[in-house]
């Protein structure tokens, strides 16, 4: 950004994010809803993400050191096991964890080289060319969804001729850079381009992420929060969740929607719907 551009946009750059009605007049704000009651923990979303975003399979040894590169992972909890002494294995709970695309992202402010930014449509972007691998962003991420390339993975993850299956719309990352979920930005860019040529906005359901597309129980819903008629916007509204608030006031205590670590004031773009279980059954 040049000096003139910096001065011109100074007031908009200095504003505290997020604020009430930030995306009201904007075209896009990408957001997601994940229904934990529908999630079966099948890992189809993870697999789809590996295929779509050129994620390397790191192998058993690296995985055991916590170097796996899954941009979306299924976290497993055994919270309900104690209530079911006879069938403790029924107590497993699953939670797909991916980048929450925070509106006030802790990772963005600590990058020493400005490799991670907030895009106008509300995504938390990562530019691999600019990243120097300080890993500060990962340390500052409360969700631990940023993944570092400890090794030069491409040669061993896709030996010839497997490199033919790589997605040409996504960079193959090299050693020493940080990477994270992009909300499948390559699909978003393409959908926006198509819509623009036809002189309209992207319609609801026209574009979706790989994980949402692969989910067999439709637990993941993806869409444009700035469009009040989209499914995601309706779900957010029904769950009485406001993007710009760190504490949601709800009219009904049994409402299932929540955002993870809201009290850290990261203002995530993903709403989770709590699981319902009848433990007597």
């Amino acid at each position, binding site marked *: 950004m040049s000096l*003139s551009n910096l001065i011109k946009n100074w007031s908009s750059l200095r504003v505290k994010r997020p604020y009430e009605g930030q995306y009201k007049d904007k075209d896009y704000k990408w957001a997601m809803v994940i229904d934990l009651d529908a999630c079966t923990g099948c890992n189809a979303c993870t697999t789809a993400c590996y295929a779509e975003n050129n994620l390397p399979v790191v192998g058993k040894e690296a995985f055991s050191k916590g170097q796996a590169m899954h941009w979306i992972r299924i976290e497993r909890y055994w919270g309900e096991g104690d209530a079911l002494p006879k069938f403790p294995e029924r107590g497993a709970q699953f939670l797909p964890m991916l980048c929450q695309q925070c509106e006030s992202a802790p990772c963005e402010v600590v990058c020493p080289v400005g490799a991670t930014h907030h895009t106008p449509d509300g995504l938390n*972007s990562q530019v691999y060319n600019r990243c120097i691998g300080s890993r500060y962003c990962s340390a500052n991420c409360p969700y631990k969804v940023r993944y570092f390339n400890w090794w030069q993975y491409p040669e061993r993850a896709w030996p010839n001729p497997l490199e033919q299956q790589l997605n040409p719309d996504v960079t193959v990352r090299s050693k020493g850079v940080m990477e994270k979920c992009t909300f499948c930005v390559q699909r978003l860019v393409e959908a926006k381009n198509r819509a623009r040529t036809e002189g309209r906005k992207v319609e609801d359901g026209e574009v979706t992420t790989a994980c949402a597309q692969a989910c067999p129980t439709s637990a993941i819903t993806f869409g444009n929060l700035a469009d009040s008629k989209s499914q995601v916007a309706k779900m957010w509204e029904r769950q009485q969740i406001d993007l710009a608030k760190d504490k949601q006031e709800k009219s009904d205590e049994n409402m299932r929607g929540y955002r993870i670590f809201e009290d850290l004031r990261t203002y995530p773009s993903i709403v989770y719907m709590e699981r319902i279980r009848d433990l007597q059954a």
Partner: protein
Amino acid sequence: MKVHIKNILIWLSLCCFCSAALAEPFVQGGPIGSQTDDGFNALGPVVEQPIEFPHKTHAGNGPGQMNINCMYCHTYARRSNVSGIPRLDKCIGCHKMIESVRDKPRIKKLFEYWEKKKPIPWKKVHDLPDFVRFNHERHIQRFYFREHRPVREVCGYCHGDVGSMNTARRVKALSMGWCVSCHQKEHLENASTTKTSNGPNDCWQCHK
């Protein structure tokens, strides 16, 4: 002493501001003296093509030149990311009707490929790195279809005046600083308004 420090600070900040404002946007990327017409040391190499295709004859508008629209051959520029290199049957489609030039060496070579049923192995001249997402469609839709600027001018923003060359040569820098230098400009939205807009300034628009 206090005044001293203040003075130094003012001078320092002045120096920073001036150097930032006056710094060349991008001059590396090629041997010194290989300057493009917009001031970047980034003139591309001469690329030897299998047939020395005269863009001049086809797209030029001088006497005896055909003044064909760039997008008659590079047909995908208006509807996809890449502009596309025309297939051999596009060349033959016209040239089998043009008897007068059939004996020229270049046309003979063209028909040799046609008879052997082999595509012409054209070499890439404008090559962007794999991590860049450039979209021809967006630029053509805006400047050619919406603003009705002349096609040679619109393509020429990035490709130079190919209509005056034989085989194309990269004459623009095609570097990030060069792209941004245009995206920062205040472009008039159309001829009848004073409203301006910039190109996108968002990393993920071009970086993938």
